[in-house]
């Protein structure tokens, strides 16, 4: 079913060449022990295979235990891991025959958002997603996945193209947020994101969205309105970065761990809150340790969603999409009849002879202008 060959989970752990995160240090020590044993074995200093086997088992169980209880802040670190698979990896493993389309035909080509035709599990789709870049050079070129307005406009242009030819849209979200810069503001980053939210809500074709790494606020949502929204197990999605939240609400960046907890930004919490539909499981030790298995899991989610959504009539789909958004965040209640809030200031609009200064002025302004007929 998938071109991504599944690797033995422990081989993937032992074969991992990336950096260990601070909280993963215990795993690193076991990993080093295994490497040492294997070297000694290679120098044929006796049969160490039993010892190696037991250390490998230890590595597997410790990794499993650690990764099934990540704190929200640890999740943030995993989601940002420099070796975490990016859209460009999934284009190699999950997408066949990717045909990239560049540019927004107005300003330029923003490499922070990639768009193009492709095939996923036999379905022709339009792929739209953030690209953070693999190495330093690429990362600088695409602003670490922080898109400018032209990136969002490029995405919208491609989504409209997809709708025209009945291609489902697949969005892969992976960004810290939209680019905060002068050019971004000058070219209307607010308007670009707003238009995407509005148009995606009524786009006449299925939309599937998966957060593959970071889901950073409006910059993520700008390509994140969909009929199915999923998150990789150890990705995160948040209204603001934990660092930003800590700086504003806790008045110190040091409180980012607490902020990460308060924000309920993990896949598990967001599933509970009804913000997302599906949690895509990650391989043992996270997607960065076994990109092949992560790819297979992503492909499975996309294949199932596309098959399911393509069976539905588009008008029904769009109607459901609206209802879903309409009910989003129904976290309010009416308090009529319940305890009254103490009103410390008269707030009733004035009328009659007891008019306020404001009302007087409003009345006077009106007298000087030509009256309009009441329709």
């Amino acid at each position: 079913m998938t071109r991504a060959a599944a690797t033995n989970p422990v081989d993937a752990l032992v074969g991992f060449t990336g950096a260990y995160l601070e909280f993963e240090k215990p795993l690193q020590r076991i990993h080093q022990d295994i490497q040492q044993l294997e070297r000694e074995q290679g120098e044929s200093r006796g049969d160490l295979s039993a010892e190696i086997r037991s250390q490998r088992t230890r590595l597997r169980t410790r990794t499993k235990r650690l990764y099934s209880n990540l704190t929200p802040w640890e999740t943030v670190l995993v989601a940002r891991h420099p070796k975490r698979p990016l859209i460009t990896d999934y284009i190699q493993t999950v997408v066949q025959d990717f045909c990239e389309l560049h540019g927004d035909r107005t300003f330029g080509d923003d490499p922070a958002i990639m768009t193009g035709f492709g095939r996923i599990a036999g379905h022709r789709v339009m792929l739209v997603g953030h690209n953070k870049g693999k190495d330093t050079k690429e990362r600088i070129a695409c602003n670490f996945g922080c898109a400018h307005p032209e990136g969002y406009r490029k995405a919208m242009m491609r989504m409209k193209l997809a709708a025209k030819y009945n291609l489902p849209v697949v969005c892969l979200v992976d960004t810290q947020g939209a680019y905060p810069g002068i050019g971004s503001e000058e070219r209307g980053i607010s308007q670009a994101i707003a238009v995407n939210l509005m148009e995606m809500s009524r786009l006449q074709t299925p939309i599937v969205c998966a957060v593959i790494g970071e889901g950073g606020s409006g910059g993520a949502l700008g390509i994140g309105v969909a009929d199915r929204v999923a998150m990789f197990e150890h990705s995160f999605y948040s209204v603001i970065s934990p660092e930003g939240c800590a700086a504003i609400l806790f008045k110190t960046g040091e409180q980012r761990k607490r902020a990460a907890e308060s924000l309920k930004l993990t896949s598990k919490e967001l599933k509970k809150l009804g913000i997302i539909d599906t949690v895509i499981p990650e391989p043992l030790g996270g997607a960065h340790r076994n990109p092949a298995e992560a790819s297979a899991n992503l492909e499975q989610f996309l294949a199932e969603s596309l098959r399911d959504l393509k069976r539905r009539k588009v008008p029904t789909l769009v109607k459901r999409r609206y209802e879903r958004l309409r009910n989003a965040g129904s976290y309010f209640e009416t308090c009529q009849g319940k305890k009254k809030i103490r009103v410390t200031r008269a707030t009733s609009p004035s009328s009659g002879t007891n008019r306020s200064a404001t009302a007087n002025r409003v009345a006077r302004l009106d007298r000087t202008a030509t009256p309009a007929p009441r329709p």
Partner: protein
Amino acid sequence: MAVDRPTEKKSDVPAGLWTRCDPCGATVYSKDLAENLHVCPECGFHQRVDARTRTEQLVDPGSFEEYWADLVSTDPLKFKDRITYKDRLKKAQQATGERDAIVAGKAYIRGRPVVLAVMNPAFIMASMGSVVGEKITSAIELAADENLPVVIVTASGGARMQEGMVSLVQMAKTSAAVAKLDDAGGLYIVVATDPTTAGVAASFASLGDVIIAEPAAMMGFAGPRVIANTIKSELPEGFQTAEFMLEHGFVDRIVARLDLRKEIARIIDYCGK
């Protein structure tokens, strides 16, 4: 995406008989200031006003009929920073006499019936959580259902962090409502006031058929400090103001507060609504 600005200006709430205008330093008789719709008679500075005052300034006297007044947030995240969100809400409710950061309903503006929603910068910087999102959406839907123009006076520090992702999705919810109104052929007028920023700027506030802004209102997406830190240099003079947005094509007209009623009525008439 969130509040990253000074939350209060001293001149916001005229406390005593006299009010000092921050930009020009003039001391103005509070009643005169109110009569001038909280625009400094000396320098023309447009002070922030709360939602009730703003409503009174905009609608035909006595014509405002409030809707959805009893909605309150349920604190979906059980959020706590230095204080709990519940306490923060309670404090804001007691200080303002409002339940959340928006007042909405039906009114007449110079004889034209409208649906009106006014955000309240005096309430947690008019940040958008579920209640603001719900009332904006309901107002837009009501306008679509009854074929009325909808006027939204925006002012916001952005999404309400204390409601986490629940607040972020309000951006999509409100924008979807605008799409629905647009499909129904309804008229949507945005009046952007100080400050219209972040998650509100990047959703319904940028989607009006006509977008008018008050002079010198701060308008933008990212917080100025965040931008300054990213580009590692000073921001240009007048960056992220209504005038800046006009210059770059994202605001259609800048209208002084004293002319707002007239201008809104004019736009409604041109659109035949």
